[in-house]
């Protein structure tokens, strides 16, 4: 499952980040490293963009980035 298809208001653990090149590296630089947890806050009203929180900050990802991030459910709440 990728972040684009995750459910709102839940926590996920990043399994891997696919793709290569700039986009891949940028996601890594932002802290989307395998093993870290992200909170999916919600999707934009017109779709295509997901808002996530990780490591203490919020960031919106478009589908072309969110689709690169493979996650698994990690609801420990």
């Amino acid at each position, binding site marked *: 499952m990728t972040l684009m298809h995750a459910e709102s208001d839940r926590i996920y653990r990043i399994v891997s*980040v696919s793709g290569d090149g700039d986009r891949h590296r940028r996601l890594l630089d932002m802290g989307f490293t395998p093993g870290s947890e992200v909170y999916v806050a919600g999707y934009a009203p017109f779709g*295509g963009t997901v*808002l996530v929180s990780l490591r*203490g*900050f919020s960031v*919106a990802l478009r589908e*072309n980035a*969110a689709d690169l991030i493979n996650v698994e459910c990690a609801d420990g709440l």
Partner: protein
Amino acid sequence: MDYNIALIGNPNVGKTSVYNKITHSFEHVGNWTGVTVEAVSKEILFEHRRITVCDLPGLYSLTVYSPEEGVSRDAVCAGKQQAIIDVCDVNDLSRNLYLTLQLLEAGAPVVLTLNMMDELSRRGQIVNYRKLEAALGLPVVPMATKYHAEVHMLLSVTVDYIEHRRHKRAELPYLKKLPLEQVKTIIEKNAEKAGVDLLYAAIKVLENDTFILEKLALSDEQKAGIAALGEGLQDKLAAARYAYIDKIMDGVIMSSVADEHHEMHEHSVHDVPLTASERDEAEKRGDEDEIKHIRLHGKIKKNEDLKRRGFSGLDRLFLNKYLALPLFFVIMLAIFLVTFGDYMPGYWMKTGLEWIFDNALHDPVQKGLTSIGAWNWVTGLVTDGIIDGLGGVLVFLPQIVLMFLFLALLEDSGYISRVAFMTDGLFRKIGLSGRSVFTMLMGFGCSATAVLTSRGMEDEKMRKKTVMLTPFMSCSARFPVYSAICAAYFSGGKAFVIFGMYILGAAVALAYAAILNKIKKFKSGEMSFIMEMPPYRIPTLTRVFQILWHNAKAFIIRVGTVVFAINIIVWLLSSFGVGTVDGNTVFGYCGDHAEIKSFLEYFASAIAPLFAPLGFGAGEHGWQAVTALISGLAAKEVVLSSIESFGGAEVVFGTDGCAALAFVVFTLLYVPCIATLAAIRKEAGWKWMLGGAALQLATAYVISLVFYWMGVLFTYNVGAAVSIIIVLVVAAIVAAVIAHAVRTRNMCIGCPGAKNCGGSCGRKKK
């Protein structure tokens, strides 16, 4: 002693605020990513040393993605600075330290400063910065920009670092996990030739950094050698850095004792929450109180946990699926009402100023000049040309400043980035991004400055389109024109017409964006995929006063210089001319003889017939409307001041309300002021500027034409006008429904991935 220091750090950590405080500058700051787009520097004197301080655009990593980030990277790599101040947001420390590690890898002389300590303490947390100092081997200064003493401390530490501590390269243990030695041996000679640091080059080779790879110019053999070291080294490197950060961050940020005490106290009263098995038992027993207690605790815990992860509870409201857009419109409408509505703060301030100009300036001056027998034309120049012309514009000062204030508050609070997020999907369909929304909203303030905010947008075509279309957004200088003319003709529906103008401008801009995106030459490329959400912040009072003061000053200077000069030129050209008096051709002041036609009248009369179809170009006063538009090119405020100097809207448009409406529409849409054109040329080049100007002129003409004739039709035959509108609306709805049905044929229901999903989300197809 001359030193060079630079400020570097992640975007939106307050580098520019620190810079402003150190150098006493007023560089633009804002609560969003990428406000600073180029390096700015200033020389200061600090304790008998001359220090050049340089503010750099923000970046996440030394491997860069945009030209602005490149500026920062080059500054670090050039190594001209004796010290680099790495500004970190202490509330988001782990990601900030990622850049710090890269600076240390590059061997840069880093002084770390933990900014925004005030926000941290407000949350009842403390930071043990000594631990960081020990782990990273560099000086750490915790501070809040608002305290001058702490900024002074930062400079003091930096100077001390330069003079007394010889810079030693930090030991970074995580690098040992990577095959850097092998890479070093492979690229050693190239690095020496290219003059880059060997360790830094080796790390960047692992990261596949194009900038360094180009510099090194590796042979195919060398490339193969590096490829043989293994896959996924990039991931490993990033993960190793973050793992190291987590390790050194352990125990750095803690809750203060008071907070812990509070928690203990709470638990001693409430008892600790039950575990899952205990809850099951409680449920079995049916003990309602116990179950409620657990739920309550769970809820509080969850909110705290989410806050720690970086999620703000306010987003639940502002980004709510259903409430987000209505809330946005309500906020925008409220701003407009408070600023421009009748009997609102903006209105009272304006009315007060108007009274002062009329009763305290215009009338006494006119009386005084006439009584001492000053020349007719001098009296005219002073009262009609200068006092009325400038006064007519200056009375809008309070409203314009209020508008800027609200825009700045939206920006500083962090809300504008949420707007970008929620409109992103919609805007991408027409080839713009949520980022363009920001530039366009700023266009409501001032087109020329808004155009400059487009920098930092990733896609060049999208950026240029945004730049070209932003002038359609109704800038604050155009507002006085609507207001004065509408007051004369549409007194009842004044606010409605004004709001309509803002909507019309935005609609035209969006329609053009959609059309341009269908043309291959102008289609936007793939968009950047990350938008940062800055934290919500309450703007400080000092900042509010700063905004008010700076905008008021800028407006007054503008009115005092450009508008003043143009006004006098226009007045002279429109008040002096030639005519035939008693059979002789004479040159003179129009006020002296009714037969003398002004120079401007000759010129404007010549082109006025072009505007006759729009209503306002026809008739004996047509040339005045055209003159106002021409002089408005210098600054949009001049459109109104020219009309005022001709005697006001009632004189220029007579009784023709439709012509007045067409004129207002034309003012909204036609070529923006020279300052904006210059900004567009700077940002997008001559071609876009000229193309844009032509497009705007054509659009203004066509749409004004439509408005004028619809208005005329309404006046003389309401039935026909309403019928036409109904037919058009029905046709548009039918077309939209058909288009939507065609587009969504294969989409799944409620899928966030929308078109690109292809069914992988497992939701039902329509």
